[in-house]
């Protein structure tokens, strides 16, 4: 055995858990879904057949019902990601900067503990709160803000509230890490140079926290786009998401080919939205960099 082979074998063997996890639980299942999306359902007892491959399942999937749910899902995911970002940004800033270091662990734990509780149980909790006889409705009425019972359970609004609640910790944590890393000392340098707190946030803290913003948005948007538990519990019939339609094809209709085609459409749309998001971000950064930079090249202002 040459030392090189030795080294390669060693590295591959040591990283076995990583690559095995990716291969068996990600690459193979996704490849199968993509493969099945070109298949068909031959008869009512067989979920999928790949004897004759075609693109026919894709037009078949594009029913008006699917498309309206699909766009409603995109709206919920994009709006949900933006809402999570808007809520998480001041929250993470507060934990990273305002909370005394001794109490920071506690604040983070309070964010994490609900997150570790069963997803379904937490969502069912919201079902109770959002119901017309739930306490949110009762409070709003007793405070005189509304006169009638609020009736938002089993609507897109309920799903929207539910997903923001469920995915918020995934936004707060990376933002906290990023803001924490930008550091008190750099903020002091900024104050020292005449920037107030808002300017310091905009010019130093936020730009330095951008990696956290990006990873937070990805961590929220991608799973949210495919979520179907929240929609099942809080959305009812009128507030459904694409994830539910796909699950229906796999579980109830036993049409894996059609379900796979829908899943591929969902995955592709996720990629496209993320791609557009990055393009918008980069353009924004270029524009602000242009607006803020002082062009200093030799001999020219």
């Amino acid at each position, binding site marked *: 055995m040459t030392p090189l082979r030795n080294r390669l074998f060693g590295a591959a063997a040591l990283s076995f858990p990583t690559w095995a996890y990716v291969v068996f639980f990600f690459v193979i299942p996704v490849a199968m879904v993509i493969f099945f999306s070109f298949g068909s359902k031959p008869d009512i007892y067989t979920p999928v057949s790949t004897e004759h491959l075609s693109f026919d399942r894709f037009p078949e999937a594009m029913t008006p019902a699917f498309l309206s749910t699909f766009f409603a899902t995109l709206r919920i995911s994009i709006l949900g990601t933006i809402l999570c970002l808007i809520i998480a940004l001041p929250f993470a800033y507060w934990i990273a900067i305002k909370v005394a270091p001794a109490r920071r662990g506690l604040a983070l734990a309070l964010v994490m503990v609900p997150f570790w509780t069963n997803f379904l149980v937490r969502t069912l909790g919201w079902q109770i709160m959002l119901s017309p006889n739930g306490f949110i409705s009762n409070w709003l009425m007793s405070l005189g803000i509304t006169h009638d019972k609020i009736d938002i359970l089993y609507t897109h609004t309920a799903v929207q509230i539910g997903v923001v609640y469920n995915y918020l910790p995934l936004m707060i944590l990376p933002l906290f890490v990023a803001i924490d890393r930008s550091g008190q000392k750099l903020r002091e340098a900024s104050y020292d140079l*005449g920037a107030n707190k808002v300017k310091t946030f905009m010019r130093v803290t936020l730009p330095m926290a951008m990696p956290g913003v990006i990873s937070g948005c990805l961590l929220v948007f991608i799973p949210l786009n495919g979520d179907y538990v929240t929609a099942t519990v809080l959305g009812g019939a009128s507030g459904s998401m694409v994830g539910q339609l796909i699950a229906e094809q796999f579980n109830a209709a036993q049409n894996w080919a059609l379900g796979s085609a829908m899943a591929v459409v969902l995955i592709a749309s996720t990629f496209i939205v993320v791609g557009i998001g990055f393009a918008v971000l980069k353009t924004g950064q270029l524009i602000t960099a242009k607006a803020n930079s002082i062009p200093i090249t030799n001999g020219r202002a």
Partner: protein
Amino acid sequence: MTTTATADATAPPQFEHLEIQGVKKSFGDTTAIEKIDLSVKKGEFLSLLGPSGCGKTTLLRMIAGFETPTAGHIYLGGKDLVGRPPHKRPVNTVFQSYLLFPHMNIADNIAYGLKQAKVPKPEIAERVREVLALIQMEDFAGRKPEQLSGGQQQRIALARALVNRPQVLLLDEPMSALDRKLREEMQLELKRLHTTLDTTFVFVTHDQDEALAMSDRIVVMYDGVVQQIGSGEDIYANPSNRFVAGFIGKQNFIPVTVTEIDESGATLRSDNSMMRTAHLEAKAATANTAASTTALAKGDRVRAAIRPERMQVTPADDSAGSRPNTAKGTVISSSFLGDVVQYMIRAGTNNELLARVPAAQARLFEHGEDVALSWDEDAVAVFSDD
């Protein structure tokens, strides 16, 4: 403009440029600064010198506005800065760890303060180029901080502060992260910039050589109390207490007993030497005590202090130790430092004395060799023993 030209009701006219009055600072139960009064002249290079934990950085941070004094006032040009947030103070800081903004290039880092002050863009560009030329780093404008060495980053940090033309430039141990050679270069650079720009510099350091080399005046601090303020020469030659005597330069402290007092001075005796001094008072250990001096009395135990360079080392002779201002000793170690030879000499039971003699005129004594030490009467200073 050393005094306030505009008549300000709260500011007496004898105010210096930067005036620190009765400033105290405590964090919870711990007192960081006892009470400090300090005047800094316009265009002065003032160093705050002391060991870590002496309160020098806290004082600097109070001038910058990062800490609020528990009591007292800090006037700049006659206006009280206390209560004003850092971004509204006409001072800028050069930080120990540079703290350049990693996501901006060098030009944008330097322009940051000017942008906050809403200086027009063409003027910003002009001033950034000017300051880059001043530190001879014109070619670095487009680079990111991470592409620069530590020394270069520190010069950019200096430029980023100076470009705002602060009324006072605060420097928080700006060279402690640099290696010795770079540090010496930076010292010269800083001195040159100070002369060119005529800006007031307040420089925090724990390095006495650095303070001596660069400052117009030095403020020696210890334990939250100002021990002495004066020029380097003054502090070195006339330390006001035992702490300053030991902190600035090297010092031999010899435990002695006062055996005789007459009108011309006192006779002091250690276990193997006898010395005369014209001093009739012992200076205190630190400035933290109420009395700065105590009169000597027969039988008092005090400490005599003699600078190593005031010691003369000669071949052993029998009368050493019985004549005044002499001692017998044995060389424990000798080190050749280029311009001087430094000897560690055991004199008496547990006294090790340091002597520095010019290398050119010295005959080299060897390890274990017996020698005689002698010094002039005016080399002896007397400090209290407690």
